Every structure is written in C-alpha cells, then in structure tokens.
C-alpha cells in the first residue's frame, strides 16, 4: 500500500507541476517600469550574460556583485550598455555602465546595497540593439551580530585607490583594473541620531579614459555601497595613460592617472 501511495504522490506532483510553472513569478524585467521603459517593448534573451551574487547575505549594506558579459573584442555584437536594478530597494536603480570594446571583456565587480530580500536584475544591450537579462534573488538576513553603527559619516570625498596590472598581459589582452574611492554615499533614506534624515550625497559619475578616449562611463545610484568599488577589464593595444575620474552630486571631483604598460604577451 505504501508503494501505491508513493505512486499516487508522484502522479499528483506531476499533475501539479505544469500549474506551478504557469503561476511562477514573472521575469524581473516585467515587474519594473524602469526596465520596461529601457527595453521599449523588446524581450531580453537570457543567455550571454551571467551574474554572481551570494544566495544569502548577512549584511545588506555591502553585497558583492559580479557581472560576466563575455568578450567584447572578437564579438560581432559586443555589449555596449549595462544596467543594474534592485527590485526591492526604495530606488531600484543601482548602476549604469557604458562600455567601449577597448575594455576587452564586459566583466565587472562591485558592491551594492540591498535593503531587504529581493531580486537583482541586470540588463545589457549589445551593439545590434539586442537585450540580454540575468536575474537572481538574494535573501538578506541582516544579522544583529554584524550590524554597523548608524553614525553619519561626514567625511568628504577621499583619495581614490587604483590598481592596474603592471604590465598588462599582452597587446589587446584584458587585465583587471580595480578602483575604489572613499565616499559615504549617503542615500538620503536614513535618519541620523537626531531623528532627522541625513542629507543625500552620492557620487554620480565615474569614467575611465585611455589616452583621451572614454572606454567606460558609469552612473552610480544610491544603492552602490559606501566607498564605491568598481573593477573592470581593460585590453590596451599599446602603452599609454589611464585617467579615472569621479564626480559627486555637489560637483566635487577626484581624478587619478595610471601608466599603462603592455607586456610582451608571453
């Protein structure tokens, strides 16, 4: 009899399965006006763009996000633009990136803020106008054990940090550039100890220029973690100079220059 019951359970599971698929939640891009606006009626494809996020984060203030968009150089339709959204944040915009093929690869690492458990959506548009999408739910289980103090940071924009491979592996071969700048990235959503909202102040723009040509420009929103961190690839063909530039909402700016040397590729 146990056997029959088991069979019956299997059968039921089978019968119920299609229903479950039909009632599954809509893809993230359908749930967000901002994403639908950008797509303009197009339906994004789901291959070709991968993201990595923790399944569970114990600290929503700083969640590592990796975007893997593949090669730019040898691709017929390289990715030109990427947008990151956090569907459950008070402002779902997180980050926007415009890429030049000189980056070599559409691979990025950053750290973002997630207010609560939610889905992170990354959309990309390639040179042919086609869209790609990747999404992942993240459970945010903020642990009191790891809670940060609520002291507002009134430090102004600090000195940038930049690490470039020296030398880059070879002409046209991508190496990782890491950037970080000290900045509170005050969201404007948070109360200070006096109960009043702490004034918003975030870095808005970041760009990277190789010998005067913009190879990457980024738009940060409030959900980029304090002290914005962004790592990207760069595939220089020849020696040159890299200029990195940050500007915050108050108009304050910082820049950094790094010499780019290209190795022999051995």
């Amino acid at each position: 009899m146990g056997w029959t019951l088991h069979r019956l359970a299997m059968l039921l599971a089978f019968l119920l399965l299609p229903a479950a698929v039909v009632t599954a939640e809509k893809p993230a891009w359908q749930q967000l006006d901002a994403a639908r606006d950008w797509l303009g009626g197009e339906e994004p494809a789901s291959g070709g763009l991968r993201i990595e996020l923790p399944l569970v984060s114990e600290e929503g203030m700083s969640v590592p996000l990796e975007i893997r968009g593949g090669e730019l150089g040898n691709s017929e339709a390289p990715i030109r633009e990427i947008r990151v959204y956090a569907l459950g944040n008070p402002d779902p915009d997180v980050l926007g990136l415009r890429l030049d093929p000189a980056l070599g690869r559409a691979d990025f690492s950053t750290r973002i803020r997630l207010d609560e458990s939610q889905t992170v959506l990354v959309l990309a548009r390639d040179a042919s106008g086609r869209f790609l999408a990747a999404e992942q739910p993240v459970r945010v289980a903020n642990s009191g054990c790891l809670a940060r103090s609520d002291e507002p940071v009134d430090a102004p924009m600090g000195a940038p940090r930049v690490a470039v491979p020296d030398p880059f592996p070879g002409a046209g071969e991508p190496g990782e550039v890491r950037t970080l700048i000290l900045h509170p990235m005050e969201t404007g959503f948070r109360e200070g100890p006096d109960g009043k909202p702490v004034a918003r102040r975030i870095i808005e723009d970041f760009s990277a220029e190789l010998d005067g040509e913009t190879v990457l420009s980024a738009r940060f929103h409030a959900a980029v973690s304090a002290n914005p961190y962004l790592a990207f690839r760069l595939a220089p063909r020849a020696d040159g100079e890299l200029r990195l530039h940050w500007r915050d909402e108050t108009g304050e700016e910082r820049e950094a220059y790094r010499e780019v040397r290209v190795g022999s590729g051995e």
Partner: protein
Amino acid sequence: MKTDQARRRLLAGLGATLGLAAAGLPLGGSASRARVVVVGGGFGGAAAARALRQFAPDLEVVLVEPSAVFRTCPFSNLYLGGLRSFGSLGHHYGYLQRRHGVRVVRSSARAVDPERRQVRLVDGTRLGYDRLILSPGIDMRWDALEGYDQTAAERLPHAWKAGPQTRLLRRQLQAMDDDGLFLMVIPDNPYRCPPGPYERAAMVAHYCRRHKPRAKVLLLDAKDAFSKQALFEQGWREVYGERIEWVGFSGDGEVVRVDANQRIVETAFGNRHQADVINVIPPQQAGYIARQAGVTDRSGWAPVKAGTFESRLVPDVYVIGDAAVAAPMPKSAFCAHSQAGVTAAAVLASLAGREPPEPAWLNTCFSLIDSDYAISISGQYRLRDGEIQEVSGGVSPLQASQEFRRREAEHARDWYAAMSHAIWGA
C-alpha cells in the same frame, strides 16, 4: 544589571533545549527502536547526541567522531593570550557514553548514501540510520586565496580549528621579536565566529603587553564593518592604546595573495606587507562530509529548512552548526548548541510522525578584551514566515563601568564552564 539579565537568558537558553524536546515525547512503538547517527562530536553534534538520548532514552544514538579529545575553539584565543592552558580546551567523550548512553564510534565518516540511508566510515564500516544529523563544522577553502594551501598553513597558521594549528600560532607568537609585527588576514562573511578575529587581536595584544612590549598587531580585513566593532575599537584603545591597527576593505585591507616563504601578503590595491607572524584566516565552507552528502549548494554551505534544520536537498538528513546556512544566526558554538536542541526535538517528532515543535533559538557571544574585560552580543531567533528571524537582541553598552566589563568576563567563564559541562560533562 544588564549582564545579570544576560546571564539569566543564558542559563535559560541552556535549559530551553529540555523544554522544547518535551514536545517530541514520548516516542511510541517502533520509533523508540530507531537509530539516529550523528556525525561530528563538536558543539552541534555532541549536544545533539546528548539531547536525543535525554529526551528518548530508548533511542539508539551513534556519534561518529575521529578525535578522542575535542578541543574547543571558544577560549582558544585565551590560550593564545596566555590566560588558559592548552589542556583546559580539551574535552572527552566518556561522559556522553557512560552518562547518556551515546554510542561513540571513533572514526571519520567518508560518505553518505541517502538512498540506502547509510553512512560509510573510513574503515569501510557501514552504519544504517533512520535519521542522520551532520555537524561537521568547517573546512578551509584551500583554493580561495592565492598562495594559501595546506603547506602554506604550516608556516602561516589559520588556527581556526583548535588543535595543532593553535599551538603552532602560539609558538610563533612566543618566538616573535620584541618589536615584531603580528599580522592577521580576515575573510569576508560568512565565516566561523564573526567576532573571533577581533577577540584574537585583543588576546595577542594582551600577550604582547607583557612579553613583547614593542610589538604591533595589524588586522587586514576583507570587510568594511565587523561584529561589535564600536565596542572592540573602544576596548582595544582603552586597554592596549595604539597597539592594534585595523584596516578594512576600503582602506585596502583585502588580501588577495600570500607568499608563505617570505611571509608577505599582498592586498587588492597592490600594497605588500611583510610580518614576523602571519595568521591567515581563509574563506571557509561546510565540512567535507556535508559536501560529499550533497547537502551543500554552490555557496559551499548547507541550506536547511528553517524550522527543523532538515536539509533542503536531501531528506532525513539534518545539518546543524557552522555547516548550515542559519543566517541571521551567526556561526557560533552557542548557536550550534541551541540548534542541536531544536533539531533533536524535530528529529524525534519526525520519527514519531508528529509535527515538529515551535522552534526558538538563542545566541550569546562573549569576547574577551582583557582578563577582566569582556563584551557580548545576544540574539533570540524565531520562525517568521518560514524563515529564521532575529526577534530581539542586544550588545553590551558602549558606556559601562569597569565593574560591568569585569562581570561580563566572569559570565564568559561561566558560560564556557556551563556549556562544556552540559555537553562533555567536564
């Protein structure tokens, strides 16, 4: 005042295990002849074995653990600081066998066969089970930090499992020059014992104050914030002045490469630090047997059903302690013990074909800054909407008298004594 409350909570927590389990009793008929195998005789596993036998004296409980002596990570920092002997960290299994009738098998589990409900040991023995509890603790991720493998750990100890590694680190600290640099590499979350590295920093500074008066302690951290940060930073300053320096992720604290031979570490933005003693706490994952049993996901940890800690991936296998994804509960001995009680009750309920009792968990983590100065954090957890949530909690106040800190240090010692007595009888 507040610590007295904390102490009451603490003792209540140790007792809560018993109250909960009553809901699972009594086991009738065939369930009482069932066999539960527990893998790992640490805080989670040994406590689960004890609890099962306490609640169901007829149940057959087999505990698989390779070591004759279990060395606790809790208080191993005190050993590094010279406040405790190494011997005092060791506990035996005799009491669990004699007093509680747990069958202790001194061996390692090599594989789990969930189809046949068997655990295979390294010597080939097969143990059948009706329910299996895994509490194997952690393994280091030897591929996660460039240059840091098992060989490198012989020169740059992690000392994140108590035992030979802990003694090695202590010997290196003792052999360090008077003006030496002690460097600690600290990983991003999640990892075993979130406040552990910062307590260790204080204990190393404690040792240095007396024996290496000009030595410094440098912490390179992959995170921008850590457990009880304000309390630690205040305590370090009050007791040890400028001796301890902490560098977080944004200050270029993330170490991406180590050179064990030259004792050099390199950070994400290319700074290189050489030190006399380097303690590398690498990224971690659930113990091997959990990964082998198929209960872990791509994070390397085991997702569990929140109410019972039954694996989400393999039926009738329960995972507790550090190996499980129990967030927001931290990976602490206190949590492992609390989970052991709840899961023992859930296992008994499942054997008896009953619904598991309503779970509640508790945590208190004490950290010593000095021999008579401790800070703590506590949390209470319940099931809400099918997930574990922190329903209350608190940390020691930032403003407190010396007397207050001294009493917390006493409570820390009480906790250690009570916990090890409850589990190992000594």
